[in-house]
């Protein structure tokens, strides 16, 4: 559905998202955020959704201002890159409601701003565990778009999951693509050395890297690079059903239906739901600024099993692990576990 059709439904409350340069179909959080608005619009006929994709970082501010002048009820911005622009706008317009995805502006708390962040290392941990359990070759792999926290937090949790599996099952499943090193995880320092594409668009690189991992023995790969992940799917397709992909950000079997067969599971970030809720709340007038942290506990991050082949026992284990992570008895910090 395009904005035109959505917009044509006569609504009074305008929900607006300023996407990053990736645009509304980046197979990543821009898409998820846009989906959130659309769901909200479907749910509450009073809401109309519209988006503006940024041509460059320099167009964040004008885009936000354009939406402010269009009288948007809430303006959703996406990604830490919009941190500055959003914070400034929020301070300048205290009554304007904002929600920013994946970032806590390190700017003075301002009245209308809701920061949405997600402890994705929690569900990544589950992903890592499942990958380790499902791997036939005893090697799994991950790679990222760029060496930045929103990406490495996933890879970090993934490794933690694998190591936890090794420790408790006394196995030696190896992870390629991310070797965590000391760093204050709480402060968002997910240090380590790993494999990166250098951008979030180059699918060809995604495929090259993934087939490389396959060659090095991995049979499950966890790409954390938005659209680049499609390259991993291509690699898996090419080698038949022996290799599979752990999808990221959104439920692969929902977002990338066509490729569902190659997904073993999805490590999701509840951008869509949290944005959707924020918008609905704003429309109802129950919007609360401040910060929201998606966790397994509040369903803000979730692990989906996409593959029917996952044994029930494993599903059960994941349940208990989830409980453990929620209660904090299980740490998602890989450096807490011995290297398998």
């Amino acid at each position: 559905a395009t904005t035109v059709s959505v917009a044509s439904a006569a609504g009074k409350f305008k929900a607006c998202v300023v996407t990053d340069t990736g645009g509304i179909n980046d197979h990543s959080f821009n898409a998820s955020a846009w989906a959130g608005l659309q769901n909200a619009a479907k749910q509450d006929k009073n809401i109309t959704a519209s988006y503006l994709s940024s041509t460059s970082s320099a167009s964040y501010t004008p885009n936000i201002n354009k939406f402010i002048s269009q009288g948007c009820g809430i303006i959703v911005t996406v990604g830490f890159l919009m941190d500055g622009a959003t914070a400034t706008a929020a301070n300048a317009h205290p009554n304007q409601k904002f929600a920013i995805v994946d970032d806590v502006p390190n700017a003075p708390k301002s009245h209308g701003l809701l920061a949405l962040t997600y402890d994705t290392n929690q569900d990544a941990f589950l992903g890592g565990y499942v990958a380790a359990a499902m791997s036939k070759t005893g090697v799994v792999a991950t790679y990222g778009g760029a060496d930045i926290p929103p990406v490495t937090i996933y890879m970090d949790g993934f490794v933690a999951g694998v190591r936890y599996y090794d420790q408790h099952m006394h196995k030696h499943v190896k992870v390629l693509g991310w070797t965590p090193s000391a760093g204050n995880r709480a402060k968002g320092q997910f240090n380590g050395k790993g494999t990166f594409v250098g951008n979030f668009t180059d699918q060809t690189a995604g495929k090259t890297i993934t087939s490389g991992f396959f060659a090095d023995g991995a049979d499950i790969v966890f790409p954390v690079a938005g659209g680049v992940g499609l390259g991993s799917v291509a690699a898996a397709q090419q080698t038949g059903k022996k290799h599979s992909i752990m999808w990221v950000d959104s439920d692969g079997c929902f977002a990338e239906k066509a490729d569902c067969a190659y997904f073993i599971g999805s490590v999701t970030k509840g951008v869509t739901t949290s944005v959707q809720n924020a918008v609905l709340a704003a429309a109802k007038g129950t919007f609360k600024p401040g910060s929201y942290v998606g966790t397994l506990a509040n369903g803000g991050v979730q692990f989906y099993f996409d593959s029917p082949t996952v044994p029930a026992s494993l599903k059960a284990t994941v349940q208990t692990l989830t409980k453990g992570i929620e209660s904090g008895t299980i740490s998602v910090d890989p450096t807490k576990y011995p290297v398998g």
Partner: protein
Amino acid sequence: MTTLAASAAKVRQPLGRTKAIGWFIVVVGLFTMFGMGVGTGTAPHSTLTFTPIDVSHGAPWHLANLTLPTEWTLVLLGAVIVALGAEVLVRRLAKGAMVRVGLMAIVFLVAVLVWASRQPGPSQVPFINVTAILVGSAAITMILIYGSLSGILCERAGVVNIAIEGQFLGGYLVGEMIDSATNNWLLATVGGLVIGALLGWLLAFLAIRYLSDQIIVGVVIVTMFTGLASYFNSWVLTPYPNLNNGNIASNLAIPGLMKIPIIGPTFFDETGFFYLMLVLVGLVSFALFRTRWGLRVRAVGEHPQAAAAVGISVERTRYVNVILGGAVAGVGGVAFAAIQGQFTPSITSGFGYIALAAMIFGRWRPSGAVAACTLFGVSAYLAYNLQSYQVPISTEILLMFPYLITIAVSAGLVGRVRPPAADGIPYSRE
């Protein structure tokens, strides 16, 4: 500006360059021997394996792993490189110098791999999968070769085709849509061929009929098509996602041949597009340099007036070749889609231009272009996959290598690239 380069080169006496290259090679060799080789820790060893990733069509005959003492292997390889350098210096090779540089590059790459994969060592991967490197890089290489062939077809007839990137994009988009709709790569290929040919025709039409600047038109066709593609992507493909969910083409293994270790998986267990590419390379080289058609094309590209004077229609020849070139690039786009899947606007990520570069320093010959594309393909593959060997180089720097290598090599080709004399120059009878 080749003329400018040439006139600049004239003043310089040729020997200087040979010397420089020679010493460069020697230095690299010494570095390999002592920089990487000596003192790599407690008697480490490196292992080469040859099993391909995909054995869906039955594995090739097994080739036992090859385990080498890292230190000595590196010293040996280094020595080989030094020898190459020495040869250049002693025999004052002017022509052969570049060949030696190429050999050096290959040997050095092997050395890097041996060094990176040493065990005990930092690498998470305890071996180098030689076959996988070749198979993996074959994908990128194939795409680039399609592009270079397209460039060669056009420029040999005297028309610069900078629009390859756009033709790739067009072929990819159309191919992917048709495959999504019909699940038939043959139809997709036809579609890509047509769109490529159309874009070729547009270039030809503007450049030949209206004598407008070929480089302008080329660049602009690319920007235009890039814009069009991403417009189309968000305006049409997003609402209708099942126009963009084709599968990737499956490999057609060639029974006997694919069993040959290394060679088999690389060349005989590929998609139809790969074989088509091989055929095209042979066909284009044959047609250009053996046949009457080729003679006439080259005449048109070198000296259109002379061709016209013997009754060859310069316009027709150029139209035909530019459209052919477009078609080849279009098919290249489909091939790309066939191995890469879903379309995204940034999918071709400059491959069209890189192919052009490859064509230039392949000296407008299919063979040269193939070499250049392979060099790029392999180095790109390694740039990404050396990362999991934990080489002590920052990711971003590592990712620069394919481009740096290309620059280095083209710098080595001192003034020796000589485009078809009439390349890029509009032709008018009066």
